[in-house]
């Protein structure tokens, strides 16, 4: 092989390795840049999550106010907002809790149930962005979920700090369970604890139609 060809191949190898390593480092799912910078940037530019048009929900209410012809959201759907205005919580609520979804807002675990279904609703969010206001929320605060198909309110009954994410989600009544990483805002250290807010339902329609 002549010298020029060798030099060219060397240059190509260095370029390919550098581009691959650089892009892979950037794409690492849990690096601080992806989780924190992009999440906070997105959060800082969000203006309004409120649904002004609830007619697109596709659901109907019967005479008792219960929801009929309800369709479960699909993964990635932004189906409402979760708010506690007095404590500054106001986040779009998505169905699913993948990393990408948690950059956009609060994510409801697909293993849990939707508001109105009468069972546990498990919602997670990043403590540095959308769920940062959770640190101000205490027992008896009221949390509202404005879904496309109805408005639901919940009262905070317990605030627990747990290790890992193994919390009990078996209940006979409808509960809203919010969770985020703990201690709040300390994104630069490995955290295994979670702040968990268990809330009981105060008001809201019941899904009684076809699922």
């Amino acid at each position, binding site marked *: 092989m002549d010298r020029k060809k060798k030099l060219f191949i060397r240059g190509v190898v260095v370029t390919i390795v*550098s581009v691959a390593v*650089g*892009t892979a480092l950037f794409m690492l799912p849990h690096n601080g840049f992806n989780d924190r910078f992009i999440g906070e*940037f*997105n959060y800082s530019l969000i203006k*309004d999550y409120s649904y002004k048009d609830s007619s697109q929900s596709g659901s109907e209410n019967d005479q008792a106010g219960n929801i009929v012809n309800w369709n479960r959201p699909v993964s990635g759907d932004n189906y409402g907002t979760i708010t506690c205005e007095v404590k500054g919580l106001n986040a779009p609520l998505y169905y699913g809790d993948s990393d990408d979804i948690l950059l956009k807002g609060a994510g409801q675990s697909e293993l849990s149930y939707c508001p109105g279904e009468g069972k546990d609703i498990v919602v997670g969010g990043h403590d540095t962005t959308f769920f940062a206001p959770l640190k101000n929320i205490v027992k008896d605060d009221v949390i509202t979920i404005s879904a496309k198909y109805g408005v639901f309110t919940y009262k905070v009954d317990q605030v627990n700090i747990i290790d890992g994410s193994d919390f009990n989600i078996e209940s006979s009544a409808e509960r809203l369970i919010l969770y985020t990483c703990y201690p709040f805002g300390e994104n630069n250290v490995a955290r295994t604890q979670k702040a968990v807010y268990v809330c009981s339902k105060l008001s809201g329609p019941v899904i009684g139609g076809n699922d």
Partner: protein
Amino acid sequence: MGRKKKRILSMVLSVLIALSLTMCLMGLIIRGGLLNKGMFKDNLVRSNYYSSLVDDIKDKLKETAAVYKLPEELIDKIVTDSLIYRNANDIFENPSAYEDGRVDTEAFQKEAVEVINDYLKENDVDNYSDIAAYVEKTARLLAIKYAESLDIGFISGYSGFVNRYTPAVNVYICVSFIIFAVLTALVIMLHKRKYRGVRYAGYGIISGSITTIIISQILKFRILSIVNNADITYNSVVTTFIDSTLSQGIYVGLVGVFVFGILCYLTSFLKSRSN
């Protein structure tokens, strides 16, 4: 050091030069784009965001004016693009003072008092004993309504974010540039014939430039895919801002390619001199 060892070390240094250059260029792109309040401000003006707010605010204030038997034209005189721009600028400059979404209505009240007084004078309503109190009260009520309607609270969120991250990104740019400079110097010093060192530095620069173009575009599409605002006008401001700032990554990368071209020329020049 053996020739083979030197070659491997040079290639490793080239990869590290590429990574440090990518870090430095990405820092510059973010600092000059996403963290550039000036560009965000320009986007708001260029996309007529303030003008779109004016009509909405005027409609709401005209209802209040009607209650106080004031003609609608007065509101047209008080509420202008420039007044909203001034309010927005205050928030850009001092976001922490406006974190709760409140708006400084002093300029509005002053303008309202002047306009209402002029109107009353024109209509010879100057024998009313409590006229000053009436004007002040009306201006205050209009100001409250104005503050409620002026939907620019998001500026404090963005400005707060910029103020929080700018010092860290500045340090990041400086550190990565120093690493880049040291590594480049090292790879050049490693070789007795300097053109060889320049060649390896060139490999690092072209790789760093290509990586910057790729990463900046991935970042752009990633952020654009998660931005979602209910207000269509505002959402268009935000997406245009993100698109235009991160598209700079392409131009910055192309500058790197151009620098690589210069280094190739320099390499052949140094080589011909050493022969």
